[in-house]
């Protein structure tokens, strides 16, 4: 098993236990996320990937364990301190979770108004900037979420998650439901923004192309804990049958081949 511990992580999970009634989802789960990396959480259905993400951001309180983000124990922070921590991360929910009564621009402006009290034309400029960074056309600003396609909703959700220029971005299945071109563009967007802004990305995904192309490390969830953390090449050397099947299955091989081809092309 690869070492899951790290010197000075931006997120540090220790001994997390989550249970719903009698069903235990996580038990004695440890995980460290390094500053500036793109880490992906993978695992079979029902291994509690989304639950773990919700636990870190405070939507679900674990039955036991400790969670440190930015070096602060967020389970025992006073409310005001917690609010400050929450402003330093952004979350993209699976279906965007945009406020349906607000336009895209207004959605992006919610955290700006709420936390920073900004007023005036700068609000529209920031909204336009985030919309452009998320790869949406300028006309999207005045549209309501119900008028957007699934991929555009995701981009709009990302734009809102980026509104406060967060230090950590949590993405729940960012490329699910996107066409391959859109998904590849979204992956590239996340990698570019990470390079430009320097945030840390924590994503839950099943997209092997995302794992192969943009993720620095992969954490595999199983047996109620994080079984392995490591790079894609570490994953390929694992012997656990589920991991072997996941990464050496036809889709896994195709993703690795595509990556190799791209790298050869970039080098040549």
């Amino acid at each position, binding site marked *: 098993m690869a070492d899951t511990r790290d010197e000075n992580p931006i997120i540090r999970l220790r001994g997390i236990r989550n249970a719903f009634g009698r069903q235990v989802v996580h038990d004695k789960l440890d995980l460290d996320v390094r500053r500036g990396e793109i880490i992906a959480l993978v695992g079979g259905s029902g291994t509690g990937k989304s639950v773990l993400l919700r636990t870190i951001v405070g939507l679900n309180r674990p039955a036991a364990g400790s969670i440190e983000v930015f070096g602060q124990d967020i389970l025992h922070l006073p409310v005001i301190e917690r609010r400050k921590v929450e402003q330093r991360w952004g979350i993209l929910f699976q279906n965007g979770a945009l406020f349906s009564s607000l336009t895209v621009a207004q959605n992006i402006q919610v955290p700006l108004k709420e936390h920073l009290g900004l007023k005036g034309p700068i609000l529209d*400029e920031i909204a336009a900037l985030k919309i452009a960074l998320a790869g949406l056309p*300028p006309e999207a600003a005045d549209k309501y979420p*119900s008028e957007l396609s699934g991929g555009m909703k995701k981009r709009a959700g990302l734009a809102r998650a980026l509104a406060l220029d967060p230090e950590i971005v949590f993405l729940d299945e960012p490329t699910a439901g996107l066409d391959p071109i859109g998904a590849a563009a979204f992956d590239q967007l996340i990698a570019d923004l990470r390079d430009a802004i320097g945030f840390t990305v924590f994503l839950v995904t099943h997209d092997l192309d995302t794992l192969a192309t943009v993720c620095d490390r992969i954490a595999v969830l199983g047996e109620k804990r994080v079984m392995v953390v490591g790079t894609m090449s570490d994953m390929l050397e694992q012997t656990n049958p589920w991991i072997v099947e996941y990464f050496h299955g036809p889709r896994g091989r195709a993703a690795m081949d595509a990556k190799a081809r791209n790298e050869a092309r970039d080098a040549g």
Partner: protein
Amino acid sequence: MSRTTSAEAVGLLRLSEQQGTLRAELSGRWVVANAARLEKALAGPLTDPRDAGAGRALEIDLSGIEAIDTVGAWLVHRTAARWRQAGGAPVITGASADHEVLLGQVAKADRPAPEKPRRAGLVTRTLHDFGRSVSLAADEALRLVSFLGETVAAMFRLAFLHPGRFRVTSTFAQAQAVGIEAMPIVGLISFLIGVVIAYQGVDQLAMFGAQIFVVNLVAVSVLRELGILLAAIVISGRSGSSFTAQIGSMKLNEEVDAMRTLGLDPIEVLVVPRVLALMIMLPGLAFFADLMGLLGGMLMSWGVLGIPPDVFMSRLANAVTWKTFFVGVVKAPFFAVTIAVVGCLEGLQVEGSSESVGRRTTQSVVKSIFLVIVLDAIFSIFFATIGI
């Protein structure tokens, strides 16, 4: 010569001028949390570069900044862009490799804002909105009638052509939800109205020394009008709204579309059971409301007037006939169809967002109560004309 701005005090920006070049030294944290202060610091010569003409140089020095994010980079980019637009020659110096990437991303994101459509004047808009609402109301009325027709057609289809497709379980489940479970609230409201009418009636009738006629007052008003009307209004609020919300959420979740693709007719599956359940249960609820209203009147008469229940009963037998009761209850199936059809139609018209569910639910309750009262008025005129 050296110029400074108010921002110097907060350590974000320092302006100086050397040999015709304006130099802006940035320092501190150029991040979104400081956006308002940064905006203020840039106001003045930099944001409004009127004196930038004739290729005047501007040097923006980033070497002193502690942190910069997309918003900070945007402000730097915008300042340079405006300066260039005004005819000046801006350069950005002291940017690290990371800053270059960030500035590159922001520059890519800079594009002209789409033109917003011009808003019409107040008079035009008012006229336009009024015309629109009239034509929409006409459309809605037409849609309601056509939907009623579709529902009736589906009922006949189920009754005579495909009795096997009729959803018995669903109908009974709906009947339980809209009928049996509504009994406590319908009963309580009718009881209280009976009490109120008896109490208020006695006050007025006492002026003529005709207190005993309170029995007639309670009996006729409850049996003819109030029992059924109260039941119908409570059911509009309780079940009409829930029909809209249920069907509306299914519509949002694409369940209604899924039904169509599986060869199921949403009208047969969703609408007919609800309409039938309400048609069966509302007359019963009206009957129950009548009983509870009379009970309330009787108890009040006993308590305040001292009319004992047996006297009340014999008086009641004189005051009303079967016809009085029948005139009330015969309206129930009509009200039931109105409430169920409006509720289901509004539900099926939900589209887009959860906000639409809320709006349609409100619409459903308002419309069905309105239509119930209009129908009641029509029945009154009808009964008066035929002399019942």
